[in-house]
């Protein structure tokens, strides 16, 4: 307190004394500078290498395999697995994947709905099924001593869901409720605008929750047929982390996946021809005073050879949270939004580069103008060596954070397998980031990213405009 009010008093006095005096005072009174590098050099805590090894565990005569990371510090195992091309965009009957996701845990095999829940809660078994547009993903974690219960439940859910009429009816009613809640949500309205305007007749353009009639047409036989077709050994990727050794992992894989057909019967996804060169689409929100904006351009695949240069390019431009160029110019300097960021997203039909923000309606054009100017500078002049080194240092320093939780590790391992990054990915990743040069970033940006941040450059903008007066 004394320091602060003292400083104010002094400032007033020094203003009278003149700027030269102030400079002398400031130099005299400056506290020792904060020297992060020196502090770290003297730090007692030194870098330690994370010791986790990724192993590929084959099973069922090599027809499937999993990436495994053993970690025995807690008696817990986490497994994430995915059936590719099994999501709602691929389904023959709209709503099947969604209904499956909604009712799979409502009783399975010999377990009634109630038993299933009670056993899971009592024994620390957590299971989530999620059907997205592209994939069907299961996340299982369990206390090791209850492995048998966990695999019994998992097998029942995958191969023998009860799909009772009452459960299906309740799921439909609850989905209708969620659909109604989406109508109150401007973010959802924006997603819907994008579906209509951008994806149109493509399966990605379908409502994520179909109407009652469509859902009502999905019966138990449809769900069984769907599960039987889309779950195969050839479209399965698995990540396992935790208290499991290779032999245990192999036994787990054989037990859980042994009954799968060798080949899944997945349908083809219609080709999607994205059009990024169209003018902004706008709708007014009936519930929101704030506007929501998203901009989309052609992205890249996770397995693209330009991935790291472009990932770093995006990181510098809009991906780095509060420190990105976008956030500094629009949030930090102007206070125009609570958050603005960009990112690459991947999906089967199209890979995107997206930027998003929310703001008061009168500011959205100004924000877009600043973003466009920032982008032009980024595109024309490239990133500086200093920015690049900072980004690389940041990405490399944060590398170990991914190992904080087993559930996270299992997800990461599954993604490594899904994107064919190889089991040595973690060993190579730091070197791959370190090898990126400013020239490589700027070259990739010129080749692969939009020429300008507008329709002419291939950036398509969608806005749900705040339609209400802001309450006082």
């Amino acid at each position, binding site marked *: 307190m004394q320091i602060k009010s003292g400083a104010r008093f002094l400032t007033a006095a020094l203003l009278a004394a003149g700027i030269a005096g102030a400079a002398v005072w400031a130099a005299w009174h400056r506290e020792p500078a904060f020297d992060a590098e020196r502090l770290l050099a003297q730090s007692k805590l030194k870098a330690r290498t994370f010791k986790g090894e990724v192993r590929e565990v084959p099973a069922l005569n090599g027809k499937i395999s999993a990436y495994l990371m053993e970690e025995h510090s807690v008696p817990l195992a986490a497994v994430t697995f995915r059936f590719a091309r099994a999501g709602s965009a691929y389904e023959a009957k709209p709503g099947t994947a969604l209904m499956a996701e909604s009712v799979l845990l409502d009783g399975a095999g010999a377990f009634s709905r109630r038993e299933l829940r009670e056993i899971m809660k009592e024994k620390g078994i957590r299971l989530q099924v999620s059907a997205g547009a592209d994939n069907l993903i299961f996340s299982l974690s369990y206390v090791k001593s209850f492995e048998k219960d966990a695999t019994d439940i998992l097998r029942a859910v995958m191969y023998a869901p009860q799909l009772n009429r009452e459960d299906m009816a309740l799921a439909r009613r609850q989905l209708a409720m969620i659909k109604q809640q989406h109508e109150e949500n401007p973010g959802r309205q924006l997603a819907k605008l994008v579906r209509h305007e951008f994806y149109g007749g493509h399966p990605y353009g379908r409502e994520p929750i179909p109407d009652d009639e469509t859902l009502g047409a999905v019966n138990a036989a449809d769900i069984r047929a769907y599960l039987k077709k889309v779950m195969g050994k050839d479209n399965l990727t698995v990540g396992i982390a935790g208290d499991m050794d290779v032999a245990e992992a192999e036994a787990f894989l054989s037990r859980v996946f042994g009954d799968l057909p060798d080949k899944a019967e997945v349908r083809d996804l219609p080709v999607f021809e994205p059009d990024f060169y169209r003018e902004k689409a706008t709708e007014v929100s009936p519930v929101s*005073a*704030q506007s929501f904006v998203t901009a989309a351009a052609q992205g890249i695949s996770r397995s693209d050879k330009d991935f790291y240069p472009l990932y770093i390019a995006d990181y510098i431009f809009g991906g780095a949270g509060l420190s990105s160029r976008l956030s500094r110019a629009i949030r930090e300097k102007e206070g125009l939004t609570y958050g603005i960021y960009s990112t690459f997203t991947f999906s089967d039909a199209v890979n995107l580069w997206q930027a998003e923000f929310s703001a008061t309606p009168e500011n959205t054009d100004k924000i877009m103008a600043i973003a466009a100017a920032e982008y032009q500078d980024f595109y024309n002049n490239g990133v500086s060596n200093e920015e690049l080194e900072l980004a690389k240092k*940041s990405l490399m320093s944060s590398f170990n954070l991914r190992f904080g939780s087993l559930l996270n590790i299992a997800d990461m391992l599954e993604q490594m397998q899904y994107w064919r990054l190889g089991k040595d990915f973690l060993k190579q990743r730091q070197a791959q980031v370190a090898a990126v040069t400013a020239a490589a970033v700027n070259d990739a940006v010129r080749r692969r990213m939009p020429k300008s941040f507008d329709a002419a450059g291939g950036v398509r903008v969608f806005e749900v405009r705040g339609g209400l007066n802001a309450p006082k």
Partner: protein
Amino acid sequence: MVETDLYGQIKQKKAAGGFFRMARGGLFLTVAALGLLLDGGAAEARLMKLDYFVLDNGLRVAVAENRKAPVVLQMLYYKTGSVNDPKGKGGTAHLLEHLMFRGTKRVPGQAFNRLTEEHGASGNAYTTYDQTAYYEFSDIAKLELMMALEADRMQGLDISDEAFAAERDIVLQERRQRFETNPVPLFYETLSKLLWQDHPLANPVSGSPSEIRSLTKSDVEDFYRRYYRPDNALLVLAGDISAAEAKDLAQKYFGKLANPAMTIPTPTLEKGRASEVETLMRIEGVQQPRYADSFRMDAGVFSKKDIQALGMLAEYLTGDDSAPLYDELVYRGKQLLGIDVGFSYNPELGGSFGIYATPAPEWLAANGRSTRPAGAIKDLIGKALEKAIADLSPEKLDKIKNRVVSDAVYLQENPRSSANFAGDMLLSGYTAEEIADYDEAIRAVALDDVIAAWKKVTASGGRVTGFLCGREKAEGAAAGNTQGGNNAD
């Protein structure tokens, strides 16, 4: 951040997760959500290994060692939040939280953000009614830098006028993004006001937009000087570090900070008036009617045992989709589409016990007379609740207790959950020993304790029941027409 994606995937409709999920954002001490811990009988099960010590300047430090990976989470809590906002200056604590990223004398301007980013830390901060917390998750090799930065901004804040003005605008944008993008938050904010009247818990953490606009730099600096001090803070380190190392480093970076001479002010708590209010809110654009019922829980009334008992009661009533209230009203009765109960309580400030439900449209059409839909749902749930509590037996309670053994494992596994749990518990008056043996406390809760705690909740005399619907909906409900007619897909 904006939560949209281009193909609008649906999140899981049924929440997964255990007792330790944290209900942050607007709620304070989530002791209820922390819930229950129990080992089915094995005596060695300690909930979590937690080392605890206090520096000479009063800074409390807790360490949850976790050697899995070379990473560590640092959380620095200040025991202050929106309840300490001066009258008419709502949002002070929250704006200060934002300004803490805007520079100190030694780490000026945006240097804090640049340094944490450069060194790969992932961090943020949040403000609740009763705590303001700052955290950095980083590689163990970077922890000392994070500690130095956090210690530096405990007392060295130095914000420019421009930074203050920009950050106040950002906070207004945040308030808008949270509260003015859909009608539901306004509903809960209104219920809170009715329940707490002149009590500081009535005020939103963010402050109102006009309050935020009225805040000055000196308002925030005054608040900072009053509450940001070692003896009003708690440091939690969770990760690849031993208690001995943590003690050395805490002393090195925080030990030299001094406390100001003034005492820490305590908020004035208006005594809650006994009143039962039923309210109907019609807001344009609401598609899905919602029901909420909250009981005021006054400060100083509920013991630790009461709180543990209520945690078990909440888990029993709606802990999953086969729990009695869900089973009775959603699954079998079909009157509701969803129901949840929960509570939050700070022994020094008070709290509330809430029941939240979504009525089924068919039931609403038949029973939700537009003049008193809240009352109709209250009666419906009241009967089911009475029956469920009457059905609760020691055996059922044991089952609830037994659920917990595994959650302790999940809690220990993740440094984030360990740190959050330790921090919340320490700030709500638990000692490190009590936290380590929390499972034993849970085991000791008897059926009578649960009944007695619930009686205390219902006897508080303060209760607000609310019903939210669209303008057309309430009338539609009266006429038996449940379709809002606004599903233009």
